[in-house]
Structure formats: C-alpha cells, structure tokens
C-alpha cells in the first residue's frame, strides 16, 4: 500500500511499540505532525522546549526500559535537542530523535532554519541518519530502534527533509536487520569467565563495583547471587544506585567523589575489584593512578571500547552483564570473608557518612530522608544536578530496582523536571519524585506547563538554598569563599507553580516537612514543595578533584546523629 513518508514513520513507530512521543513542531516537521491524528495510539506530549522533550524521552526510557522518542523541527528545534541527546549518549539511554529538515532542494543552501543536525550530533549519537527518500524510511526507523536499544544503548537521530514526509511510496516494514558493522557481543568469553571465577574464588578482600549496566541488562538477580554466594560487598556508581538493594547487608553504598567513606576505603583496600557494567568515570574513580592500588580488576562490560580505556584491567570480559554473570555464577564457590566485613563495618562505624546532624535548621538531607520515609522507598527519584543530586543519592535508601534517574555522565542541570515528567508518563502507577535544586529547576521550569497539561502527577521537591549550591561549595572549599555568580534570587516557586495551575506550598521549618510531603502524596496531580533549606550546607563526604579515592574530606562538625541511615549490623 502506498503511504506518505509521514505515515510510514508513524506506522513504523507503532510497529516498534511506541506509545508516547515528546516534542514540539515547526515548519519542517509539520507534515509529520499532520499525520499524527491518523494514529491515535501515538500519544504526543507537547513540551515547552525541545530540551524538555529530549529529557522527557530519556526519563520515559529509563523508567520503562523502552526506547524514548522525541520530535523536533529543523534548525533551532533540532539544536535545542542537542543537550538532551548528549545526556542520553553519556548515560547510555535508548532514544530515537526524529527531526524535520529543510526540503531536499534547499539542503546545503543555508535555507531558513537549516542546520546540519547530523553533523552536529555526530559525536553524541550512537548513529544518525539523513533520510533522502521515503523509500528508505521504514528500514531506517527499524535500524534506529534496533541500534538504540541493543548492545550499549544510546540515542539515534533521524533527520528527515520536509518533502520526504509527503513523498509517497510502498510501505513494507522490514523483518530483518542488516547491519554488518554492528554485532554486539552478548556472551562473555568462556576462558575469561573462568579466569575471573578463579580470581573471585581466591580473593580475600573482593569488592563489586556495580554500574548502570546492571540496570540496563536487568541483571539484579544475577548480581545478588554473585554477591551472596561469594560474600562480596557491593558498592555502586551514581548511576548504579538501585541495581542492588541498599537495604541488603552486603550493600556498602555509592563510591566516588561524594561516595560513602567506607565505600571508597573499601576500593582502596580491596584485593579484587569486580567492575560490573560500569565505565570507570573520573567522578567514580577520582585520581586514576590512586584507584584500587591493591586490587586486580575484572571488568565486565558490553562495550569493548570501555575495557582498558581509563584503568588497567586484569580480566576483561566483553558481554551483556546478565549473560556473563549467569555464566560466572556457575563457577563461583561459596565463601566467607569475615575479617573483610569486620573491617568494612568498622569503617562504616568510624566514618558515618549519612548521619544528619541535629541543627534545628531545615536541612536538605533531612528533607530527602523524609521523602524516603514517606514513600517507603517505593518512589522513582529523579534529580537535578548539584548538591540536590548528591543528597538524593545519599539520603534516600534505594531498595527497589531502577528507582533513581539522574544525569550522571553529562551532569545536566535542568534534567530533573522533564525527565520526571517522562518517567511518570511511562510508569503512571509509580510515584515519581523530582528532587531538584533551585538553579537546576529554573533551567527547565517551563515544563511545569507540560506537567499541568498532561496531569503528570510528579511530586517536586525543590531544595532551595538560594545558591548554585554545588559550585558555591567548591568556591567555599577551593576558592576562599569568593561566591562569584553563585547566589540566586529565585522566583517565588509557589506562585510560579500556581500560575501554571499546579498546587504548591513552601516549607521553612523541620516540623512542616512531613505534613508537606504527605500532602504532596495525597494530591492526585502534580505538586510542588519549595523547601527553603539551610543555604550553606555542604555535601560530605567529598574527595577533592585530583585526590585519591580514600583521601576523604568528611563533615567538619560531628553533632549528635538524629537518624542513622541503617542500623549497623
């Protein structure tokens, strides 16, 4: 049957199981939008900025495990997607972005709203396409989804000239993929797995560092089995959080720049590091030359290029984490590491990293902790970037798989709200909390309109410290407190929310925190709480840039602990 390019795209999206698209239209993509009413199963969410569309698509993708889809028009529409695409690239999130392009006769002429978006996004996409004939659209969409979700997932962009959307051709959705240059390795090499098992079975102080790869491949049970069988403590990267229940006795929290002191000390003391689905990001390793100095390293990752990129690896295993762990687990003998755990527990006791001091002031850490208590850890937490992000990582206890969505690799302020909206739309029955900073929130504050229009019941907790807080912290610690350009005089967030039709309250005192959170939970729609928190609170522990992971700056004042993250076993 003959169809237009626009229809072919919609048909293909449906074949790929797409049900939501985030985007904003414009001249070049108008013909595609014009076909949308023929496809009522494709729900279009109109964001208020294309960056919001890309982040929402990523939030949707990360919450559901499906490919997130966004649309934008040519020129500024396409360039506005760029930050969101880069974010998805660095965090390995599956996404397909479809952009309108000027009509074929205008390409290369600097036509109105023409930019070379395939050129621009070349280093931040897994692959991209400029489709010059309707006849190759179906194949392209099929490939794009396949590339986006398989192997190491990532964003794929399809740029479609305006006249290709209206060109008519026969529609056949291909059944096969023919990509000779793309063959992700899923199964780990048996002899490497054997070597790894030997090291694990012989180790005295083994440590698992688990990353987002565990979540992407859904290897929760396999990871748990490995840890439990061989009695290996588990620390995670920021993006690995929630791949292993933080309530588990073998969980030792997050490592890295703002990781738990005991987690970083464990890396320093380990004689074997089993790195699972993580990529040795510098925020996780700190100074590479001082990283895990006593350990042999097993690295399991689906992306061969990650092996040996940042740290030397003794046993590389390229493959899907779930598949590899499954094989590895067959070779693991049960073990006990009593002394090792005693050491780790001592460190945890001596260096409590998530105590909340009793200050009488409204502390951001306390707010996060109360959100955890009130939601029982059932919520999906989506964060901004900065201190709010670190506190959300440290003070919420992630017991349920895949419950933290945060911009790790790119560290994109403004990610929180749109990603939370996408996550909520993707998983309407899961409570979604956006824990954000007053600076980050303002970078995509316009998406309040999207939340209101979609009735997306995101609960927004702004940790309002009146500063670009994380940068202020660096200024305090490393620039002699010269607070250049970090103080923010924010708007009245309650009024702003209300102007968008979203209920909101302000909280200034500790005793108002719990009632406010309960009210937010009770509210059927979106809700915003402006928590006016202690302005100059710092995130601890901290490893200064350039320091080794165990050179930890801990909170200077040790007041009485109000609440312990978990009772020490």
């Amino acid at each position: 049957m003959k169809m237009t390019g626009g229809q072919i795209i919609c048909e293909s999206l449906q074949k790929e199981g797409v049900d939501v698209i985030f985007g904003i239209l414009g001249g070049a993509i108008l013909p595609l939008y014009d076909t949308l009413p023929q496809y009522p199963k494709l729900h279009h969410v109109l964001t208020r900025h294309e960056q919001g569309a890309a982040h929402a698509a990523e939030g949707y993708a990360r919450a559901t495990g499906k490919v997130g889809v966004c649309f934008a028009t040519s020129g500024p529409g396409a360039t506005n997607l760029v930050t969101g695409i880069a974010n998805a690239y660095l965090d390995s999130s599956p996404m397909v972005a479809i952009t309108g392009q000027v009509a074929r006769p205008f390409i290369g002429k600097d036509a109105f709203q023409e930019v070379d978006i395939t050129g621009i996004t070349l280093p931040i996409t897994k692959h991209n396409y400029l489709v010059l004939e309707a006849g190759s659209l179906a194949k392209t969409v099929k490939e794009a989804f396949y590339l986006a979700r398989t192997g190491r997932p990532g964003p794929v962009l399809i740029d479609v000239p305006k006249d290709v959307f209206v060109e008519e051709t026969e529609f056949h959705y291909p059944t096969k993929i023919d990509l000779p240059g793309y063959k992700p390795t899923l199964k780990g090499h048996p002899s490497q797995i054997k070597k790894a098992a030997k090291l694990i079975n012989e180790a005295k102080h083994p440590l698992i560092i688990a990353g987002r790869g565990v979540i992407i491949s859904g290897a929760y049970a396999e990871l748990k089995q490995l840890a439990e069988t061989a009695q290996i403590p588990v620390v995670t990267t920021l993006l690995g959080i929630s791949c292993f229940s933080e309530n588990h006795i073998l969980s030792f929290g997050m490592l890295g720049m703002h990781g738990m002191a005991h987690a970083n000390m464990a890396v320093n003391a380990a004689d074997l590091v089993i790195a699972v689905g993580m990529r040795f990001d510098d925020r996780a390793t700190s100074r590479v030359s001082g990283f895990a100095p006593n350990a042999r390293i097993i690295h399991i990752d689906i992306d061969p290029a990650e092996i040996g990129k940042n740290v030397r690896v003794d046993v590389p295993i390229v493959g899907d984490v779930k598949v590899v762990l499954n094989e590895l687990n067959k070779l693991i003998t049960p073990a006990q590491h009593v002394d090792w755990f005693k050491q780790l527990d001592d460190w945890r006791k001596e260096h409590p990293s998530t105590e909340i001091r009793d200050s009488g002031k409204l502390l951001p850490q306390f707010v996060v902790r109360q959100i955890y208590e009130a939601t029982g850890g059932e919520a999906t937490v989506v964060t901004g970037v900065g201190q709010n992000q670190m506190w959300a990582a440290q003070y919420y206890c992630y017991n349920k798989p895949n419950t933290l969505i945060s911009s790790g690799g790119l560290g994109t302020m403004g990610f929180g709200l749109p990603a939370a909206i996408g996550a909520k739309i993707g998983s309407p029955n899961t409570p979604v909390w956006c824990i954000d900073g007053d600076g980050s929130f303002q970078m995509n504050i316009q998406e309040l309109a999207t939340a209101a229009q979609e009735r997306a019941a995101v609960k927004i907790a702004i940790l309002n410290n009146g500063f670009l807080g994380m940068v202020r912290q660096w200024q305090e610690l490393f620039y002699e407190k010269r607070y250049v350009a970090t103080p923010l005089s924010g708007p009245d967030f309650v009024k702003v929310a209300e102007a968008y039709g979203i209920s909101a309250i302000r909280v200034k005192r500790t005793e108002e925190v719990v009632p406010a959170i309960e009210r937010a939970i009770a509210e059927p729609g979106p809700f915003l709480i402006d928590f006016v928190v202690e302005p100059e609170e710092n995130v601890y522990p901290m490893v200064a840039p350039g320091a080794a992971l165990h050179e930890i700056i801990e909170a200077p004042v040790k007041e009485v602990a109000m609440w312990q993250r978990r009772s020490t076993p």
Partner: protein
Amino acid sequence: MATTQHTLVALVEDKPGVLNRMASLFRRRGFNIDSIAVGHCEVPHLSRMTIVVNGSTTVVEQVRKQLDKIIDVIRVSEINAEDAVNRELALIKVKANSTTRSEIMQIVDIFRANIIDVSADSLTVEVTGDEDKIDSLYDLLRAFGIKELARTGRLAMARGGSNSLRPEKES
C-alpha cells in the same frame, strides 16, 4: 609508554559521512593520525581505509575499538608491520634546469622512480615504495628545490594468501 607507528586497515560502508565520522572521532579523542588512505576494495559498496596512527599499544587499541563502534565501519584490524607489504606513492615536482636535469634523472633512476612530466624549469617525479624510500628520495631532491609534494599515505596488505581483514574473533 613508547609510541610507535601502527597500521590499521578498515573496511567501511561506502556512504556519505563515513569519513567524517572517523575524522571526528580522531579529533575528539585526540588520536594522532599520520595518514589515511581511502579507496575501493574487492567488495562492492565497501571502501578500504589504511590508517597510520602513532601511539602506544593501548592507545592504538582504543583507536581500533572506537573505530569499530562506528556502525558504518564493518571491520578494523591492525596489520603487523613485519607480516605486511607497505607502499606509498608520491609525486614530487622538483626545480630543474639544463645543468641539474641529468643529475636529477640519475637519482630518480637509482630509486626506480619515474619522471612523468617535464617543463622548462621542473621535473615531476613519481615514486612508489615504503615511507623510508620516499623520504630518502625527497631528501636528495631537496637540494634542487622542491616546488610541490603530494603523498598518498600508506597502503598496507598482509603478506601471504589470507585476507588482511580476516573476520575478527569474538572478543
């Protein structure tokens, strides 16, 4: 770590933008590329690239893996210098007059190079060989004055009957 020259051979889709993808990768990751030569190969719709890269073994391994990640790159292999034939072609336009011409022609002869164009004040020399040979000829001709130099960059092929780009084993 010691940096040495390595030769990579890549089979890539003959599609617009492929060269751009590869060049962008080299630039972005700061890889030090000495030369790239591109042309058709025995398989239709595929091009073959010979990339000469300078770096330590780990860096070159990163280059290879990163190239392999490009979807349009079908296969990349490193070619071991000892087991390969390497050739480059150069065109050298050298200043020449009635007194120097015969001397230049003698040198060209010794190198088994060819003179492919002659004018009143120049000779254009075509030379094929490995880089060392071309470098030495160039050095000798420099004394006469070089007007122009064009080099193709290295082409490489494994010795013996097997294909240089044997399918890679699963890593």
